[in-house]
Each structure stands twice: as structure tokens, then as C-alpha cells.
């Protein structure tokens, strides 16, 4: 069996270590995710899902433990290399989308490519492919703030995929969506999974973890992995 695309060993995050207001959102979390699978991190609010996902996505550094993504130990990487790894191998869809609202859809999507110095022609080409795939073509020049919630999320997904990554992380993707849009979102996820993407979703929405595309559910509670 080949190496898992993602592996965490005893990952712990401690905020304000040694102070009175010490918080430990994630404690000794170990998990592995195989390539091409869809995994849901499930648990109530405050169970540490988002923190764990952020650590895997190189957004924050774990206090202890190690994280290996695509065979690379990312948890100890200096910022520059962690960023490079993030830019190249990880797609992250934030709960709040975190789009730049007065930029156009197209400009938002190509943002992760700018630091790599990919020529504008290629940037546009890749972005349009994704826009086509996510049915956003007619909205290409719209400003993000003029889009609906569902469309904004699709823009966020496009942006996370533009770097050609194979691992997609999504934090509470359905929190701002109604039932119809949730179904639509899962349809896109299924489509991505079929294309070979590895998907890790943090969610407490039953509609997500009860969906047929999900291969495995990892349950978290109070910062620890329960099952």
C-alpha cells in the first residue's frame, strides 16, 4: 500500500502556553487519510475541527506533533517553505470563504498563482477551465460582493483548486448554505472525488457526513479524536 496523502501524529495545539488562560483546542490528534478518499471530521462546535484542519492546511503551526502532507513534514517547516507547500499542494476552502470582495471573480481565483510568477495567459486559461467546471463563466467579471452565497463558495473552491493541488480541505462548507445549496455543494464534491481529489471536510452538518460520497468519518470531541 502506498503512503497516505496525509498523516498526523499526536498533533497538539496549545494557545497561551503556561499562562492562566491556556487553551488546548487540539490534543494528540493522529489520523491518516488515503489518497482519493473523502473524509469528514465530525464533531460539535469547539471540538477542535477547525484548528486541526488549519494545522493540516499550514495556516497555523502545531505546538507538538507532526503533520505529513504528500510525504513532506510540514509542521516544522519555516514560514517560506510552508507557504510554498501550501501554494502547491493544498487547497483550502474557508468557512467565511475569505474572498476579496471588491475584486472580480476571475481576479480572486488567480490570486494564489501571483507569487509563483505564472504568466497571465496561463493563469487565465486555468481559471477559465475551473470557471467552466463550476458553472461560473457568466459571472467571470462580476465583483465577488455582487454574488450569492452559493456562488461565492464556488469561487472559493475554484481559488483553492487553481494551484493544481490534489488535497482539498473544507472548513464547515455548508454552514452558510441552505438545503438546496448543500446538495449542490455535495454534488461538486462528488465530482471532484471522482476526478481523484482527496477531500477532507470539517463539518457537523448531518447532510454532509451522511452523504454517500463520504468514505470515512472521524469524530472529534473536546480536542481529541474519538473514533
Amino acid at each position, binding site marked *: 500500500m502506498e503512503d497516505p496523502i496525509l498523516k498526523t501524529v499526536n498533533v497538539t495545539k496549545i494557545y497561551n502556553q503556561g499562562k492562566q488562560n491556556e487553551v488546548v483546542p487540539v490534543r494528540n490528534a493522529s489520523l491518516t487519510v488515503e489518497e482519493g478518499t473523502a473524509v469528514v471530521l465530525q464533531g460539535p462546535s469547539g471540538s477542535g475541527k477547525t484548528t486541526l484542519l488549519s494545522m493540516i492546511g*499550514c495556516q497555523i503551526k502545531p505546538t507538538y506533533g507532526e503533520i505529513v502532507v504528500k510525504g513532506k513534514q510540514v509542521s516544522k517547516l519555516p514560514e517560506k517553505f510552508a507557504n510554498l507547500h501550501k501554494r*502547491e499542494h493544498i487547497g483550502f476552502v474557508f468557512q*467565511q470563504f*475569505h474572498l476579496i470582495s471588491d475584486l472580480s471573480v476571475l481576479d480572486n481565483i488567480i490570486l494564489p*498563482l501571483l507569487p*509563483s*510568477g*505564472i504568466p497571465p495567459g496561463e493563469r487565465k486559461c486555468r481559471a477559465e477551465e475551473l470557471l467552466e467546471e463550476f458553472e461560473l463563466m457568466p459571472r467571470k467579471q462580476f465583483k465577488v460582493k455582487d454574488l450569492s452565497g452559493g456562488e461565492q463558495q464556488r469561487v472559493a473552491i475554484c481559488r483553492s483548486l487553481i494551484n*493544481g493541488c490534489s488535497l482539498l480541505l473544507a472548513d464547515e462548507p455548508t454552514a452558510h448554505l441552505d438545503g438546496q445549496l448543500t446538495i449542490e455543494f455535495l454534488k461538486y464534491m462528488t465530482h471532484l472525488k471522482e476526478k481523484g481529489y482527496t477531500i477532507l471536510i470539517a463539518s457537523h452538518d448531518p447532510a454532509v457526513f451522511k452523504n454517500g460520497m463520504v468514505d470515512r468519518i472521524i469524530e472529534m470531541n473536546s480536542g481529541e479524536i474519538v473514533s
Partner: protein
Amino acid sequence: METPTQSGSWLERQRSIIDYSLQSMFRRRTKNSLILVMYVLLIFVVSSVFFITGSLTVELFSTVDELPDITVQKLIGGRQVVIQESYFQAIREIPGVEAVEPRIWGYFYLEELQANFTIFGMDLTMLEEGEYQRIVDWGPALKKGEERPEFRMIIGEGVSRLLKAIQMEDSFLFFQPNWDTAIPFGIIGTFKSETQLQSNDLMVMQTEGARRVLELKEGEYTDLVVHVPNPEETKMIALKIRRYYPELRTVTRAQIESTYTSAFNWKAGFVLSSMLVVIFAFLVLIWDKASGLSPAEKKEIGILKAIGWDTEMILSVKFWESFIISLLASIFGVILSYFYIYWLHAPGLKEIFIGWSTIFPSFDLVPHIDLKFLLLIVTVTVIPYSTIAIFPAWKAAITDTDFILRNN
């Protein structure tokens, strides 16, 4: 699935970052265009003041080689008074003095026009013959020696323009309140416009005529000019003149040169006050930059970090933003002030230099641009402005992404 690497060239990366900087400037175009306009104005004001004072200094210096070595004036009761012929004889005796030349000059106020003319008496035949003929436009009224040759004069262009308005451009009727009758002075020529900056308000007349207008008695002069062939001796001779005659005052050429040099230095009220205003305005601009970013800007930085931009790239974006603004503004401001001073002849600004005069000189100043000044103005504005912008961005960029995004 292909894996992108740092495939693009360094140049393309920089260009992408500049693109992004420009785009984000354009998104905040109201604020940025205001800053740009402010900035251009600041540079424009500073350069205009420096251009005009620099050029005037050059003009002041243009004839400095022809200045008299020592000018001697007599002071009584804190005022300049006429100097008698006896001094003239005594100063000539001082060893090292080659010649002493008495001068007759003064001012004439013409009430109807509220204008002040400078009157200078000399032997006009000196101008009428030889190479000096070239500096005068000889008028049609040149009837040499006609009637009363002692009452003839050559005037500056500004005077001529004013006299035309009262139909006296061929002959001017001088009148002092204590005279019985007015004396007509024939105008035999006008100084060429090339000399306008010096000759604009001049009425150069035959010595006898000047004596009459200024009411100087025989043997009295306005001041003396001393020629000293050896420049090493000038200072000593001036000292001797003052020591022998404490009522006399001397002005040496070296003194005039140093007066000219510091004419528009930073202590000059006008330079100082305009600089102060500009400095404070610039500090306000800097303060706006340094005092931090708007929540939207902070959020943007957080987003860029979250999607994998390095801190230094975010700083480059901010650096380019302010660098581009300050560079464009300073180049544009300098060019603008060049055309304002040397093509349009400084409307608005020249009035400050003219003051209450009614005889306006032309302001065709010769351009004088000090490269050192250009470098200085660029460095003292562009560098602080573009570097100071980095600090708040740096502060935002080193903060945890999570923290910025959660708090905005």
C-alpha cells in the same frame, strides 16, 4: 494533475506583484487619487520655490563680475546722505586705489501711476557711441544734441510701457512740487528687452539732468565707486576707508556676492514658511501611512497570507503601492513646476516677488536646475513615504492569519 512549481521567472513574479499593487490602488482609487494629488501639489510647491529662487540667484549672479569693487556711501543719523567731493579726493589717495568714480542716482515717485523709477545719471555719450550702442533700442526721437542735450534720457522697457499709457513715451515731463515749471526730458531710446530684468525701471539720464531731478548741488554725489585692481587688497582698503571716515559705509563685491548667495537660503521668510507648510503636509501624509491599515486592508492581508503568499510578497505589494504613488507624484510634480515657472512664467508665484510694484518685469527667468536638488527631493520624499508604508503591513502580516481573519 500537473504540479505548478516556481515556474515563472523572477521578472514575471515582480510584474505580477506590481500588477496586483496597481489593481489594489485602483480599487481604492478615491483615496489614492487624493493622496496622489496632494503629493503632486507638495512636490510642485517645493520645486517651484526652488526653481524660482534658484533662477533668481543665477540672475543675481549674472553680472557679478561687473560689479564695482567697493561702493562707498555716507551715513548720517542712520540714513544714507549725499557724499561730498572731498571724500572722493581723499579716497583716491589711499594706496592700492586705482580710481574713484562718483555716482548720481536715486528714485523718482510718479504719483499718477504710483510707480517708483530708478534714476541714474551718467554721460550718455558713452552709450551713444561704441559697443554699448547694442544694448539700447534707439528711438525715432533720437535727435542728438537737439535743444537741451542735458535733458535727455534712456528708459527701461517697463517705464516705457507705463509712459505710453499717459502718452509720454517720447518726452517725459518731470515735475517736483517745489519747482516752478516742469522740465521735459527727451526719451532717446529704450533698453533692449534682454536687459529687462535689470533695466526695467531705469531712467538713465545725462548727469546734469539727473542732478536737476534729484536736486543735488554741484560737488555732491549719491555714492562713490572705488576700483581696486588687486582683489587681495579690497577688504583692507574698505577697512581703511571706514577707519579714516567712520561716517562712511563700504560694500565690497565679496559682500554682495555673499549677500546674493544667501538671498534665498532657508532663513528667507518665504522659503522657510513654504517649506514648513509643505513639511507638515508631508508629515500628515506619512502619518496616514504609518498609523495603520483599514480593517478591509488588514483582512486582505490575512486572506493573502491564508492562500499562501509570503510575508515579503505582501510587503512588496505595499511597498510598490507607495513607491509608485510617490515616484509618479514626484516626477510629475517636478515636471509640472518646470513648465509652470519657465513656460508660464510663474503666474501667482511671481506676484510674491513683485510685491507692491507697479512696474512689472518679465519673468522669463533662465532655467536653473540643480541635479542635487532633484535627487534630494526624490530621496527625502519617496524613500520615507514608501518605506513607512511597510510597517503597518508588516505588523499585520506577521500576526497570525487566523487572528486577523477572525477579528475582521
